[in-house]
């Protein structure tokens, strides 16, 4: 039998004491930034699947993973986060030092979200899809993560998580009207899809008072595709879906809110089946 005696050198002891002192004198309220992941994961068990998301917007990340795993259309809309209960400071310390008087920046206060949901054996089966997504929504609502959402069937084989609640300055949940409920009108019949989408964003901005701008949008593709479109006082969401359907491609949207600039960003990307290869690379296979 061999025994070893570990001798602590004086310098290490001194450093250890110094670190201990530094630790004791650190501010009590340190916001630990979660270790976010670039993407959520979905793993499969016998009759259930488990999604694990770690993101400032964990429901959005989980939605992306589930939609990509099963090849289904799920759109996503943020509620208008505002209070310190739904946001945390994210300011780079170096930048803060260089800009001591600036207000800094925040991020949405989400962290990890793990949910086991009934396996979707047949992605074309609407009951299976809704069963899974209803479970995810229910689990999310009790997870302590920011925002309250509802699940809506917005079209054939199409669903959406729509933000309907945020916490107020006292930490209490309050309802918020989804901004894409705003009624909009498209004048005329023939539209290129980009002009139509721009008109929707402009009208929502004017009617609601909240700014809506394009984020990641395939502008060139939409601007070179025209279709018969009409809307008279319909919810902006329905008109956006009319535009996406008119593209004859399978596109999904995500409406993300940044409380620092009080602006909604409308993002549109091709709906894809996402497969992670053995090399760890994610490969995208558009659904159409």
């Amino acid at each position: 039998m061999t025994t070893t005696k570990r001798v602590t050198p004086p310098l290490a002891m001194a450093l250890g004491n110094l670190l201990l002192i530094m630790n004791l004198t650190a501010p009590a309220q340190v916001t630990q930034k979660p270790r976010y992941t670039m993407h959520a994961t979905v793993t499969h068990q016998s009759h259930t699947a488990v999604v694990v998301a770690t993101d400032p917007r964990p429901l959005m990340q989980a939605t992306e993973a589930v939609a990509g795993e099963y090849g289904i259309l799920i759109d996503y809309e943020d509620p208008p986060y505002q209070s310190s209960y739904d946001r945390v400071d994210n300011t780079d310390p170096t930048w803060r030092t260089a800009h001591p008087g600036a207000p800094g920046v925040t991020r949405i206060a989400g962290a990890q979200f793990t949910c086991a949901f009934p396996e979707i054996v047949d992605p074309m089966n609407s009951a299976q899809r809704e069963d899974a997504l209803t479970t995810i929504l229910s689990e999310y609502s009790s997870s302590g993560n920011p925002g309250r959402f509802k699940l809506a069937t917005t079209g054939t084989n199409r669903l959406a998580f729509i933000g309907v609640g945020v916490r107020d300055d006292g930490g209490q949940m309050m309802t918020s009207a989804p901004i894409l409920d705003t009624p909009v009108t498209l004048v005329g019949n023939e539209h290129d899809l980009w002009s139509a989408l721009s008109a929707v964003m402009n009208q929502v901005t004017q009617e609601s008072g909240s700014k809506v701008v394009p984020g990641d949008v395939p502008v060139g593709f939409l601007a070179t595709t025209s279709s018969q479109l009409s809307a008279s006082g319909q919810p902006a969401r329905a008109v956006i879906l009319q535009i996406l359907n008119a593209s004859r491609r399978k596109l999904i949207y995500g409406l993300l809110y940044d409380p620092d600039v009080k602006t909604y960003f409308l993002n549109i990307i091709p709906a894809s089946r996402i497969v992670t290869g053995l090399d760890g690379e994610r490969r995208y296979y558009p659904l159409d």
Partner: protein
Amino acid sequence: MTHLSSRAHYVLLLCVMVAVLTAPTKAKAQDCCYIPQGETDHVGPSLVQLANGATVQGFFMGVNNNLGTYFNGRLTEEGPGNQGSNTCWWNGAANNLDPQHPAVSGGTWTVGSLIVWGGTVVQSNVYNTYGYDYVGVTTTAVDYVRTNGPGNHIALPCTYTIYQIMYISCPDEQDTPDYAYNTHTDTIYAKQVVNCRISNDDVCETTNYVTP
């Protein structure tokens, strides 16, 4: 002299028939679906038709090969290539759904056809060209990254990198082989935006754009 059995005769005859039938078919298949050896990019106008499109660059696209094949009438289509990257993105940023997959839209173009923008014909019936591929992010996104990025741990310049695979339809419409693997980059500087379309030739355009 060697005598072949009737079975051997049958096998030999079968081999000859297979050789006769397959050789011309292969040659025919190659003849009917010549593909481009790559693409040519020429800097076009930026997307000024769009209110916030000054930082989106149009590249006028052409296809060719060294046989001088006439590609007019055939469809080109883009699809996603390898996993992209986006160093302009931070956790919580609102202007991108999937930072590793800055999306190609999956657009299609007909080679040599009318090129229509917003209902207006901007180019028509040009030999072996298929119109504009727009590369870039809108001024809205540029402003957002410049204003909020540095506080969110993003150092300028930062770059979106998108991988694009180009496909072209065969005349018999039975196949759509790929013919080009392109890389697009959009780099946001403090006062400029540089958009590149890297195909057979590397073409970049710098736009001076200052956030108001």
